[in-house]
């Protein structure tokens, strides 16, 4: 079976985010970029399915400018078989991303699509669900365990009160949560091998779909700062303050 994994290039999770002075966005120039951490988990899960003999091919797809090829390449270095780069210079919002991925699904016919549950830049948490809607496939979001058997994906999901397990008929869409697995590191030989792997480039404007943005960003600002606090000497002082000053206990 073929597994398609969608990945996004984002500001590395260790980078401290700085809002631009003109409030048009956050600073991205000269900032380290990486694969979205939830997507790394998606790649890892696909590779494990291949190693178990369940998946036969792992294809990585990403959407964006020329530089997303680096992100695809890093997935290939982890062990994925080949990449697809949907090229565009425009901002793509989750609905547009889902429409593009649907076109790629129609072309590639995967049995399973795995995506990160959200990108750590816009934190939308939408693409997997939207893709499932557009393809009319079942969805297993926020997965912490995936088992493939009898043409079904048995997905354990992280829900608010604990865990929920559902069974999805394949083909299906899965979005990954943090505890699904711990991604591997790329080995040097695999990084070398990845350089020779194929990345197919498909211009987004050749796909014939409405990918126009549906919202405009008016402003990006820093969150309200909290006043820096009061150091207390001991528990007794703390409790006094909580009772008489803050009046919370």
């Amino acid at each position, binding site marked *: 079976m073929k597994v398609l994994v969608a990945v996004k290039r984002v500001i590395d999770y260790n980078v*401290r*985010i700085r809002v631009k002075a003109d409030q048009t966005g*956050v600073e991205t120039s000269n900032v380290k970029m990486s694969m979205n951490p939830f997507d790394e988990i998606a790649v890892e899960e696909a590779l494990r399915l291949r190693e178990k003999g369940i998946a036969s091919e792992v294809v990585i797809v990403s959407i964006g400018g020329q530089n997303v090829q680096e992100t695809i390449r890093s997935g290939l270095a982890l062990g994925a078989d080949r990449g697809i780069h949907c090229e565009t210079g425009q901002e793509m*919002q*989750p*609905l547009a991303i889902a429409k593009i991925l649907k076109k790629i699904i129609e072309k590639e016919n995967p049995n399973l699509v795995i995506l990160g549950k959200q990108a*750590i*830049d*816009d*934190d939308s*948490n*939408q*693409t*997997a*669900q*939207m893709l499932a*809607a557009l393809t009319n*496939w*079942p*969805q297993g979001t*926020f997965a912490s365990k995936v088992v493939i058997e009898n043409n079904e994906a*048995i997905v354990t*999901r992280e829900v*608010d009160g*604990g865990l*929920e*397990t*559902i*069974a*999805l008929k394949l083909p299906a869409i899965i979005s990954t*949560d*943090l*505890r699904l697995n711990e991604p591997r590191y790329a080995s040097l030989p695999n990084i070398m091998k990845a350089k020779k792997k194929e990345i197919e480039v498909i211009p987004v404007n050749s796909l014939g779909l409405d990918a126009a943005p*549906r*919202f*405009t*960003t*008016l*402003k*990006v*600002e*820093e*969150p309200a700062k*909290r*006043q*820096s*606090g*009061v*150091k*207390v*000497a*001991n*528990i*007794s002082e*703390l409790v006094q303050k*909580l*009772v008489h000053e*803050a009046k*919370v*206990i």
Partner: protein
Amino acid sequence: MTILILAEHDHQNLKSATYATISAAQKIGGDIHVLVAGSKVQSVVTQTGKIAGIHKILVADHAAYEHLLAEDIADLTLSIAKEYEYILAPATAFGKNIAPRIAALLDVQQISDVMEILGQKTYKRPIYAGNAITTIQSSDVKQVLTIRATCFDQALKSETASPQIEIVQGKQAQSQSRFVSQELTVSVRPELTSAKVVISGGRGLQNGENFKLLEDLADRLGAAIGASRAAVDAGYVPNDYQVGQTGKVVAPDLYIAVGISGAIQHLAGMKDSKVIVAINKDEDAPIFQISDYYLVQDLFTAIPEFCQEIDKIRGNGNLGQHKA
């Protein structure tokens, strides 16, 4: 203008995030309809009927909705979506699972985690784990939003509320997905996301056993217990304890962070709390920078002292009404 709200409930009680979502809808203004989908949801319908400002409750009571699977609930919502300009769900695991599916079927770009409604389809929402706040304006005709519950008040109850009740015909469950099982964490404590007091432990607790210390304090304060991602990843406590950008977002009246250094990802989940207290033996713990009160002390001596101190003032009768 008519607004549809997807009610989150556990078939017994309406979740507090639903009350916050209703209050967000009241900010938008217009007729508010609440869809209660599920199986045997009479008590939820009764509770919903006691909230002020709701015009209509749509009840879809059918075995197919027992587990609120996204495929079935999205399909149900689609069948009634036509007459609504706004569709709102709480930004919880429930709402986040379903709302984008509904939005895509309506060809709408959903807006996630709305913190503030500014009018004219303009909203504030957090990006980069709350390290930046963006103001966006939607151009879609219909709006599908998920609401960050901690940013809105709870909708008020009213003795005189009498919303119209309308039955929505349920459909046979689809066959693409099915429920297998669930494992819900059973707790005698208040729910993390709606508790007035939350005590969270981090890696400083050193192991799961030591969380008992926090329980002693939580018993006295009627608090819920949370944890940092570091503590969850280390296996001290289950995942649903996690407070943070990728866990739960909480905003209690009092948040006590114990042995938590204050990674950005944790702060994103609790920095809207009214009063933040941090106890850490590391003088340079970043969490001190956002705390209202902080104490540099080893938690293993501080927490037992904290319990004793509470008992002491309780003994004086000062805090009797707050008995946990």
